[in-house]
Structures are given as C-alpha cells and as structure tokens.
C-alpha cells in the first residue's frame, strides 16, 4: 500500500513496475478497458511475457480488473495452459491424443520420464527441461508427435525422442533447426545453383 502512495499512477509492486515484460500485460488490460471478462486474454499475455503466473502478478491483475484474487486464482488453476510455477529452460510436450495413444506415445513419455528423472508436468531439478503432455495437437497424421520448444516433431520413437531432447538440452537445437542448417550448408557448398 505504501508503494501506491509513492507511485500514484501505478498499482504495481516496485519489482514488477521495473520490468519491461509487464508493459505487455498493462497494454492488454487497457486494450480491454479493464473489463473483468478479459481475464483469460490478460492471463494469456501475462503467461507469455513471464513464462508463468506468480502470486504478485495475479494479484495485480485482480486489482486492475476489480475482481477478487480468488477468481483469478480459480481461473488460472482451472485451465491447463496456465502455470503457477516457473518453467524450465526448454520444453518437451508429448501428445497423448488418441492417434498418438494408438501408436504408443505413453511409452515415449515413460522413457523420457525415466531418462531425465522428471515426472510429466514437472521441471527437472536443474531447471533445464519441463516435460509435459497434451491432449491432441491435431497432427494425428504424424503420430506419435511431440513439441520441442514450440517445434512439432512427428513420427517419434522412444529412442529418437530421448536423443532429440538430449540434443535440445545440450545445444538448444531442435531437429528442424538442424535440418535447416544442413540445407543452407549444402546450398553454400553447391554454390547457390
């Protein structure tokens, strides 16, 4: 409350106000004219900017939209997209939709859990990897599918999945970026014909 007195135009705690990522959240709230029904859209932007929803972020959103904190917390915990804990540096999401299930994606999840010593939905102790599962990405033609740092990788096997995640953690490269590099290298060698 004392912070509000020193900074009348912002209701933010100091540590958040100094954060440029927060601007995006503030802009969204203003764009929706502080309307309570924009809550989910605001949380989407907040999650994207910060990676997860901290308590102070949620209480700030609650104050701005003039709704109780319990409602923000209720919505944030209801939807799978929102995370209340910081995420790992890299993410691996394995699809467990029906088509992937029929092609045994559960075995891939089990292998990854074992290999990286992390439960699905959690982050490794060193913060390098968040392993999670999702219900159908709609890429059923490529089943089983996983998503590495936002890039969809199809037709996985337990072995290829483990190998790709190792590469991702060690070098930050995904199979797609490796293929693109190779292609540009080949083109350079070919003299751009």
């Amino acid at each position, binding site marked *: 409350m004392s912070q509000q007195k020193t900074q009348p135009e912002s209701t933010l705690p100091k540590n958040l106000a100094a954060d440029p990522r927060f601007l995006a959240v503030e802009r969204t709230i203003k764009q929706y004219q502080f*309307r309570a029904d924009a809550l989910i859209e605001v949380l989407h932007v907040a999650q994207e900017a910060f990676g997860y929803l901290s308590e102070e972020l949620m209480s700030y959103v609650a104050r701005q939209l003039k709704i109780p904190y319990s409602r923000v917390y209720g919505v944030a915990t*209801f939807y799978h997209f929102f995370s209340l804990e910081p995420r790992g540096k890299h993410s691996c999401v394995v699809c467990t939709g029906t088509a992937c*299930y*029929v092609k045994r994606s559960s075995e891939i999840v089990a292998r990854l859990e074992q290999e990286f010593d992390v439960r699905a939905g959690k982050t490794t102790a060193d913060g390098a990897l968040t392993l999670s599962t*999702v219900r*159908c990405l*709609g890429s059923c*033609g490529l*089943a089983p*599918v996983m998503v590495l740092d936002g890039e969809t990788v199809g037709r996985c096997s337990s072995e290829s999945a483990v190998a790709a995640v190792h590469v991702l953690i060690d070098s930050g490269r995904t199979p797609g970026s490796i293929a693109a590099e190779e292609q540009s290298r080949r083109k350079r060698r070919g003299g751009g014909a």
Partner: protein
Amino acid sequence: MIRAELKRMAEEERQRQERLFCRIMVCAGTPCLSAGALPVLEALREAVAESRLDAGIEAVGTGCMGPCSRGPLVKVRIRGKETVYERVTPELARQILFSVVKGRRPPTVAALPPELPFFARQMKVVLANSGSINPERIEEYAASGGYSALSHALHEMTPEEVCREISTSGLRGRGGAGYPTGVKWNLARKAPGERKYVVANGDEGDPGAYMDRSVMESDPHRVLEGMALAGYAIGAEQGFIYVRGEYYLAGRRLEAAIRDAERKGLLGSRVLGSNFNFRIDIRTGAGAFVCGEETSLMASIMGKRGQPWHRPPYPAQRGLWGSPTLINNVETLAAVPVVIGRGADWFAGVGTARSKGTKVYALSGQVETTGLIEVPMGTTLREVVFEIGGGIPSGKQFKAAQTGGPSGGSIPAEHLDTPLDYESLEAIGTIMGSGGLIIMDETSCMPDVASFFLDFCRDESCGKCVPCRVGTIEMHRLLRRITSGTATMDDLYRLEELCDLVGATSLCGLGMTAPNPVVSTLRYFRAEYEAHIRERRCPAGACSIEPLPPGPEGPELLHAAGAPEEAD
C-alpha cells in the same frame, strides 16, 4: 466495398491466375509444416526468382491438401491440370520447377496418381478451397466465389429467408449432436433481445480430431462469411470465434483474415454497402476440454472458469451476458456459404434421407494413408478405411474404428458396412461426433482403449457435478484393475452400474457421454474384458499382466472375491 467492387476484385484475381502458366502450391497446414514444408516453399520461391519467371510461375503456400501422412505435399497446376507430389524435399521441388520451366515432363517418382482413391472418392464442399487457395489472401477466396453468398443474402434475401434456406437444406450441427441448424437459427432469430451474439465453436478438444483446425487454417474467410450470414439471419452484430489455445496457426490466420475483411468492408460497419453491421473477435481457449460444451464455452468467453450451467434456458434464449446467443461448430458455419451460394436444394441432394451434405473426417490411427477427408453422408466405413484410407498397414487385421472421441464408441469389423450418418451410427451405439475417426488394428486392447478415454474424461471433468467428478475416477480405477489383471467379475458389474449412473445424472455432455466408450466396447468386445478378468491374459497382447503369486491362493482369491461361473 460495395457489391460491384467485390465482383471486380474476384474477377481481377481470376484473370491474374489464368495468365499464369504454372501455379505451384505447397501445403502449409500444421502437419505438413512440421514435416518440413517451409524449406520447400522457400526453395521454390528462390528458384522462381532466380529463373526470372515471376510473371508466369507462382509458388504459394496453401491450406491442407488431405493426405497428411504423406507430407510435405506439393500440387502443381499447369493449364488447369493438377499433379500432387508427396514427401517433397527442397531438392525435389527445384527439380520439379526446372523441368516445368524447360518444358520437360516433371519427375514422376513422387507424383501421386490422379486416380488414387484417396482423392477420387472424396467430395469436397467445405474443404473445396483447402489446398488450392492461399489462406492469407482475401482476393483468392473471393476469386473462388467467396463472399458472394453474403453479398447475395444481404441484398436479395430477408433474414427469415436465410433461416428458411438453412432449414430446407437439412444442415445439421457438425460438432457432434447433429441438432438441426435451421431450428437453432430460428430460435435465436425469434428470441427477444436488444443484443444478440454469434459464436463459432473452434474448441476442438476431441483427441484425434482436427477438422476444425484445418478449416480455420486453410480457409479462414469461409468461417467468417458463415458467421456473418448467421449474424444477418438472427440479427446479431457481434461474433466471437473461440479458438483452441493449441491452434496458434489457426488463430493467427483468423486474426489476419478478420483484419483484411474489415479493411475491405466485408466485416465491420455497413457490410458491402448494406445496413448490416458485424464485428468478429477472437477468444483463445486455455486448454480445457469441457469448453467445447456450449455453456462452458460461454463461461470461458466471459472470462470465467469453464464450467457448464443448466439448460434450459438454452443459449439461443439466454446466452452470453444474458442475451440470445447462437453457437455453431466451425464446420457447420463453413457449410453455410455453400448452402446459401449453391442453394438449399443442391445441398439437400447430397447425403442420405435424414443426414444431408458432406462430412469432414480426420482419419488417423493404424491405416495406410492418414489425413483429412470429406465424403458425402452415408459413405460406408469400409469405403473410408479400405478405399480412401488404403487399408491397414503391415498386413494386420482391422479391429475397430473409434468415432466421436471420448464421447463416442467403437465400431467393430462386423459393422464395417454401416453408412456413416447420424442415424446409422446411433443405431450401432456410437455417435457421429465431430469427425475424428481412429482406426485400430488387432494390437489394440479394447479395455485399455476404454481406460484411455476414461482417463481423459477424469482429467478433464470440471468438477462441478458429483456424478462426473467422482464417477469418472471410480470407472477409471475399475478399468485399471481390469487391464492390470486384478479385477473380479464383481468389478465388471459395478463398472456397468456406474456407466448407467454417470450417464443419467451428470450435468453436461462431458459426463453424460463419458461412459460411452466403456458401454460400446463392452457391447462388442465383452469377451476381451472377461479374458482379462477370468484368464488374466490380454488377447491383444497390449496390457502387461503380472502372473499370479505362486501357490493356490491366486485363483482361489479371485473366486472368493466373486467371479461367478454362470455370468455372461
């Protein structure tokens, strides 16, 4: 933009395309993109620029072409003749292009034969533009006849006539339940209210279904046009598209499409010079299956937890912010411009007596060619699996097809000749659902499949009503006991009892249909359940059942727990 300008825009684009000697289309739907379509498209664009043939040859990214498992797909159109190439690499793409430039015959290695049943047996109505227009250019949609249905309705039809046309066409909801669309529109039109809303339900949550994603990605303007027609028919000025959070590309393309349509005066105030105003906003889902249910979806649009409320009153009477709200599935709305454009009679001429038009299916699982298909209502499952899909790979046997996702049921081999329409599917204990069609071969264990779906429903239950929240957990627990070989026949009876209870007493569709996969697998594959319980073995070899502890206690324990011999 007024009517004449729309016509001119369409005509100019048509002429531009006709002047082209060759148009190369690269599928830029999510599955092909993840199979590497982007480098292919870039290679083609570079090659076109290098050979200084920009005027005569065009390389564009389009929406889904269908056979997703064969991606990346490239379609080459030379003077109206089209050839589709599968699994195209950037090198192969350049080869194709240069042989076209030099007037030689393009390589035939990766070319799919035009008479391939996958293409020949389909009838594309909703997907007519998918894979042949660039979804990011409004001109191409207009050139294929887009927005002419809206223009026709606004200038020559009254809202009542639009509703009547939809009723006559026999169009039914493509989201699952198959409710007559015309009836819903009329209800919303007659409902008293200052403000009304149109909602497109693009929260396609069924695992194994991606028809709506594909329509939104490949032909976003078709959905917008359908929504605008719905808005005109019921008297709404505001629409929402609820897009599933996982569908980034669909959301991005819709956003761009809305912006373009507004700029051209096809959305916004005074659409096409008429007195009709219509705005569309996007709402992004945040990962909750229950939000596909209409009342939960509205709660989510209003920024709340996606929990259902009791019906009636139905959304068409009291929906968003208490106003009449029309909620239709994306595929339903995408069919609307066709109904208005080609006429209700044409549409009603396709399909069966009570199921009209075509249906899009996402064919996946253990089948040779997986992908997105569109067939007339009433096409048999055998045609879909063995002709269009090319049968079961590696010489295995067809075992079952799952329709309708976690709310549906499975179709065993003896019903392969069932026509796929609302009534016939209901008669054999499953539903049309939104169009997911997952094919399973002999290695799939049916109790395990049921357990998979119950796990899904247990996880996705919103927790508001007790039968669904507690019932799905209990049912899943019982199924796990069956698949791990620790169940007794008593557990099976309890499971059947719970199926009745949960189905009859749940608040919304999620709970009401959650038992369906169990009921339908029990109906056709009861012997498999009993093999797990009585013989402690999995006929499909999918479940790992640990052997009983040595000694006489094992079987005796089972019998003591009540496994009556006479039960069947």
